């Protein structure tokens, strides 16, 4: 039986000689015959300080102690020793001590590994009690949020004084399941932190949750990158707008230079007709400057889209109402289709109205320019891959390759004096302010399709931001 005990067992006499040991002991510490316990356990030449066996001999009571020894291969080993007194005669003195040791090296390493994992894993981990106070927090969390043990999680994460609405930890406390959500908090340095949090239950017994572990991934850098991309797109639009403005101004300058040249030529030749012609050119181009400035000011009215939850289909119906008579008078059929799965979305109704107005009036113009009969303009609203999509399609004259390339980039107009060239530029600006993009698919003579795509995620992010 002695041999079967799943511990390293040794029997030690009062002179620290090992007088008996089991095979587990031998496998672990090596040979023991005729050797002192301190030599075998710790490879020492004299008894250990704080020797538990000595304590047992002295007091006659069992002792449990932690110790560090050296195994037969010379490896340091952590063990727990249970030392029991053995008396030969009842009431006599303790003659032997039985020392049962259990190594804790494995457990120790696991604990260390766990500790490293807990502290060094690149995410925030907190353990929260039922009263929403933080019981434990890992290093990453403490670095960003400070030493916060004992404080309410909502206070620490968000500087709130009450529980957050839609708290995932609360849900886990209730149902014991894993919950996830995206949140925004404030670090100890005052910076906004975006994080994706997942909450798991630490069960007490089988049916109640004692603690909740919150594991959060910091996605602030990703969010910033996303914001930068949107900003870059916005700035790009501004740059192109300025280039477009320069183009218009250069055309006006050409007219002014021309007027000046012809006036001075007329003066030299004493040709009144020429002077008048030049003067008219000057007047005309000054007027153009005035209207350009007006157009530009209304275009550049920089503002964030005023988002509200609207039904995209309703916006389209408004446009159809507005244009159906004009279209019908020119023999153009104006139709709209809103697909069934289209849900309401945060949009700036006035902005989208402007976009659709521009696209539809362009489409009608393209139909008017086409020699073909039975032209039509179709507006559709649909959802695809988490994007809200508006399309305006016509079977009018289409756009040729070169025009398509600069359609959004300059104050470009093919309508002679009839257009300012700002329509599509304005449309793109509004679409980009919504975090979306606009595409054109067209071939000359085969009609055109303009598509505005709005990723729902970006719309929601802008909506949340605007609410804050």
């Amino acid at each position: 039986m002695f041999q079967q005990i799943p511990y390293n067992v040794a029997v030690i006499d009062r002179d620290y000689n090992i007088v008996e040991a089991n095979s587990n002991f031998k496998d672990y510490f090596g040979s023991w015959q005729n050797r002192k316990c301190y030599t075998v356990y710790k490879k020492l030449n004299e008894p250990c300080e704080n020797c538990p066996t000595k304590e047992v001999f002295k007091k006659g009571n069992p002792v449990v102690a932690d110790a560090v020894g050296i195994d037969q291969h010379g490896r340091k080993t952590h063990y727990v020793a249970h030392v029991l007194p053995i008396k030969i005669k009842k009431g006599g003195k303790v003659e032997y001590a039985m020392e049962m040791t259990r190594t804790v090296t494995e457990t120790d390493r696991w604990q260390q590994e766990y500790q490293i994992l807990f502290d060094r894993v690149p995410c925030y981990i907190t353990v929260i009690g039922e009263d929403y106070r933080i019981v434990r927090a890992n290093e990453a969390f403490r670095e960003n949020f400070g030493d916060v043990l004992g404080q309410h999680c909502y206070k620490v994460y968000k500087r709130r004084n009450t529980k957050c609405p839609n708290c995932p930890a609360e849900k886990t406390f209730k149902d014991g399941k894993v919950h996830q959500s995206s949140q925004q908090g404030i670090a100890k340095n005052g910076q906004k932190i975006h994080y994706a949090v997942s909450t798991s239950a630490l069960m007490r017994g089988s049916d109640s949750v004692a603690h909740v572990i919150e594991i959060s991934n910091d996605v602030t850098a990703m969010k910033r990158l996303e914001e930068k991309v949107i900003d870059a797109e916005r700035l790009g639009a501004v740059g192109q707008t300025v280039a477009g403005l320069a183009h218009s101004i250069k055309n006006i300058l050409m007219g002014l230079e021309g007027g000046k040249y012809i006036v001075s030529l007329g003066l030299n030749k004493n040709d009144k007709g020429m002077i008048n012609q030049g003067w008219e050119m000057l007047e005309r181009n000054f007027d153009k400057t005035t209207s350009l400035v007006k157009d530009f000011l209304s275009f550049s009215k920089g503002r964030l889209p005023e988002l509200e939850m609207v039904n995209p289909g309703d916006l389209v119906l408004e446009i159809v109402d507005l244009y159906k008579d004009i279209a019908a008078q020119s023999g153009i059929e104006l139709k709209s289709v809103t697909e069934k799965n289209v849900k309401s979305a945060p949009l700036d109704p006035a902005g989208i109205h402007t976009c659709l107005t521009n696209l539809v009036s362009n489409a009608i113009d393209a139909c008017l320019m086409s020699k073909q009969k039975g032209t039509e303009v179709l507006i559709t609203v649909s959802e695809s891959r988490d994007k809200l999509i508006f399309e305006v399609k016509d079977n009018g004259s289409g756009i040729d390759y070169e025009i398509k390339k600069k359609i959004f980039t300059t104050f470009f107009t093919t309508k002679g004096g009839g257009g300012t060239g700002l329509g599509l530029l304005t449309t793109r600006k509004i679409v980009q302010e919504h975090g979306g993009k606009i595409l054109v698919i067209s071939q000359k003579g085969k009609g055109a399709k303009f598509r505005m795509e709005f990723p729902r995620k970006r719309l929601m992010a802008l909506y949340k931001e605007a609410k804050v």
Partner: protein
Amino acid sequence: MISKKILIIDDEPDVVAYLSAVLEANGYKSYATGNIKTAMEQVKEIHPDLICLDIVMPEETGISFYTRLRQDRELKTIPVIIISGIVELEKFDFRTYTKDDSIPAPECYMEKPIDVEKYIKKVKQLAG
């Protein structure tokens, strides 16, 4: 001496008036059209010694017109000055706007508003 013939293709009447005045004052015979659709017929009829061409025009762009001109056996040698308000015209790359690689780039680009002296110098050089 017979005056050299220059055709101006631009939809802006003020530009046409300006360029015509400059050309006439320098002894050239100027012709003009703002309608690019009929411009090719005019080229065939007049056989100008030089064409001054705008890029951004309704119905068809100057680039597309230029491409057609260079594809015409009889007309392909007529020199062309592109006069445009496109920003940074010196960076303008004609190649990116045409699918036909055999078409040579235009003889000259000039930005609006033009420098009259440089313009006339170029006209002299190209039209003779």
